[in-house]
């Protein structure tokens, strides 16, 4: 693993991977879209069940992105490796995007099904907090000029914020929420019919691969920007 902590080695692996991951993401999203728009309406939710196929993957990807950002931040803090900091930094805007998509699609589903766009229940509030954590993390990186100090401060925020991940996950068990309980990844199997699981599964994989494609591209951007900055600084010193 540490072998690939070298930026040049990392790029030699990530560059050929990106087109494959991107193609796979597009194929999975197309498959998920095709199935998702063809399944019959749910007997309770009607047509709005289709919103689940994009809402749940967005929420999962948002949490996965934060988990990866927190792990990269920990590696950056412990081993002081710039690549880990860059990986964490690169994940944040993508995580914020998927969190925003999860919030917006959830509200769009909630309006016809719950009769309200928003409630301050445990799941929704902790998920909104995730969005603010992403924004705070991005703001912190931009607020501190010295990159090493910025990385350290942002990493500490990312690690503190990671406490929110189990809160989001178990909020539906800990508190009485309007948001339904765990219905897919649960003991005893999913509560959802297989006909709805397939588009959900394809979309979830599509979102995951889309995230990894964009993440690798953003890490490369960070590496190249850092190299350009070093070259400019050494040219300035000469």
């Amino acid at each position, binding site marked *: 693993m540490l072998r690939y902590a070298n930026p040049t080695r990392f790029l030699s692996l990530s560059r050929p991977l990106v087109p494959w991951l991107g193609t796979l993401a597009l194929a999975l999203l197309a498959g998920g879209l095709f199935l998702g728009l063809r399944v019959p309406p749910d007997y309770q939710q009607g*047509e709005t069940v289709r919103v689940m196929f994009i809402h749940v993957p967005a929420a999962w990807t948002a949490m996965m992105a934060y988990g990866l950002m927190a792990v990269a931040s920990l590696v950056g803090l412990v081993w002081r490796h710039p690549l880990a900091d860059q990986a964490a930094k690169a994940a944040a805007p993508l995580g914020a995007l998927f969190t925003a998509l999860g919030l*917006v699609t959830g509200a*769009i589903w909630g309006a*016809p099904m719950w009769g309200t766009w928003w409630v301050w229940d445990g799941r929704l509030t902790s998920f909104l907090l995730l969005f603010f954590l992403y924004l705070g993390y991005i703001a912190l990186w931009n607020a501190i000029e010295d990159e090493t100090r910025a990385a350290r401060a942002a990493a500490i925020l990312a690690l503190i914020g990671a406490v929110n991940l189990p809160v989001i996950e178990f909020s539906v068990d800990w508190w009485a929420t309007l948001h339904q309980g765990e219905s897919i990844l649960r003991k005893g199997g999913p509560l959802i019919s297989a006909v709805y699981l397939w588009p959900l599964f394809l979309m979830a994989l599509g979102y995951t691969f*889309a995230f990894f494609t964009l993440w690798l*591209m953003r890490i490369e951007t960070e590496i*190249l920007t850092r190299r350009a900055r070093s070259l400019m600084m050494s040219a300035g010193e000469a």
Partner: protein
Amino acid sequence: MRDYALYVWAAYGISFAGIAAAAALTWAGLARARAALEKLK
């Protein structure tokens, strides 16, 4: 698709527009970084 069609299409439209915009911005950022580094070499 008549019932709540607007909600479904709005959710799909926003989601795919968001992902497409992120892909375009990421690609543009990478292209810019590559060009900037190339210029300095």
